[in-house]
């Protein structure tokens, strides 16, 4: 097996060719594992009418890092699919909120575990599954439920993705990825769900074979493009959130 490198030169090359109308999943949970640099590159790249999938639209905390809210402000987003379409405090006003309230952007709110499972299902060729989550709530109104083993469960469909933006700790040239600590979060699932997986990587990219096969978190056959994150200020890295 001849092995070709998946490394691309920079973030602009990494996001090149993403068409208008794409569904883009963006990894991360709070600060860890968010592909800030790829989001920043997508702001420059300018693709429009995007559907963006992530845990949140971002912008509730300082300092603000590149987020879906910025893509919204930049006129690039048609719809978001998130487990938060408002902040965790009733008093939070997210940058995304006024656009949503004016009807300029659509939003689908999905329980976090259902969001994770719908992404995995898309990657796993499972077109739909049943879950007890959200039964009896506003989210289940008018939707299909059934009784299984005496419990009412809700039908949920797979959530396929065109492009996944991933942030990883280590990668080899074959695209095998490792995540550090809670950086893992949604990233491996979005890699499963997507047709095109682009990873920004913190450590220097290793030759194929440098990661023990037992220690790979996301297999390289799922990953198409890798880009090394330069040191700050050129590259964006997690910073401590300001207290509030």
């Amino acid at each position, binding site marked *: 097996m001849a092995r070709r490198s998946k490394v691309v030169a920079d973030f602009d090359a990494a996001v090149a060719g993403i068409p208008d109308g794409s569904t883009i999943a963006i990894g991360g*949970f*709070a*600060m*860890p*594992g968010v592909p800030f640099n790829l989001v920043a590159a997508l702001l420059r790249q300018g693709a429009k009418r995007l559907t963006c999938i992530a*845990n949140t639209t971002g912008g509730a*905390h300082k300092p603000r890092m590149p987020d879906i809210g910025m893509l919204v402000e930049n006129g690039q987003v048609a719809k978001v699919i998130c*487990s*938060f*379409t*408002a*902040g*965790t*405090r*009733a008093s939070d006003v997210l940058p995304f*909120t006024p656009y*949503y*309230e004016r009807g300029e952007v659509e*939003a689908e*709110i*999905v*329980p*976090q*575990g*259902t969001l*994770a*499972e719908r*992404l*995995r299902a898309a990657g796993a060729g499972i077109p739909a599954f049943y*879950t*007890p*989550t*959200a*039964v*009896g*709530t*506003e*989210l289940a109104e008018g939707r299909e439920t059934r009784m299984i083993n005496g419990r009412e469960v809700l039908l949920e469909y797979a959530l396929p993705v065109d492009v996944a933006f991933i942030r990883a*700790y280590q990668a080899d040239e074959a695209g095998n990825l490792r*995540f*550090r*600590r*809670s*950086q*893992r*979060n*949604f*990233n*491996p*699932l979005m890699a499963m769900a997507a047709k095109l997986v682009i990873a920004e990587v913190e450590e220097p990219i290793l030759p194929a074979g440098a990661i023990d096969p037992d220690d790979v*978190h996301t297999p390289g056959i799922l990953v198409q493009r890798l880009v090394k994150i330069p040191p700050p200020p050129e590259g964006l*890295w*997690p*910073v*401590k*959130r300001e207290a509030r």
Partner: protein
Amino acid sequence: MPWSRPQMAERLAREFQDGWIVNLGVGMPTLIADVPFGDREITYHSENGVIGYGPVAAPGQEDLQLVNASGQNVTLLPGAAIVHHADSFALIRGGRMDVTVMGAYEAAANGDFANWKVKGAKGGGIGGAMDLAASAKRVYLMLEHRTRDGTPRLMARCSLPITARGVVTLVVTELGLFAPTGEAFAVRDLAPGVTLDEVRAATACPVTE
């Protein structure tokens, strides 16, 4: 005298049994992580796949790649493990959480509760609340007994969109510890000096001893 928030946390944590896996929600419930458990072995799970986390890191010692579900830079205890989000919620839906402790806007005597959407809002913040509420073995709530304008948060039926139906096990407020019984809240404990009449006056449904 009503309980302080750390006292509420301490009182609720007294209910935890040896060996429990515990998920702590955003806000008030994070105070429980500061409660000492002595001989009881308690393992904290966080939605983002952190199993076995410990106290918040000391200032300057934060690992910026490690947060709990509240976004706090926590530490890891020996025996900790990291999994991805789908495996993390597999543990939740799979019934591995002995208890989930959440904040809430409203708790109802029928066991419903509401914590994801405020009145008149277009969006909401669900996070992992619906998954946890549907599948944890026990759902404990921590909330103030009334809103800032004095409206009771404990009531017969929720007025806000609910997070799950009939799942609440215990509710702690600054006034006491309560269990929903269907049509009422049963008092399990009262803060020192708080009377049953005071609780009844602050609650929008029957309160039983």
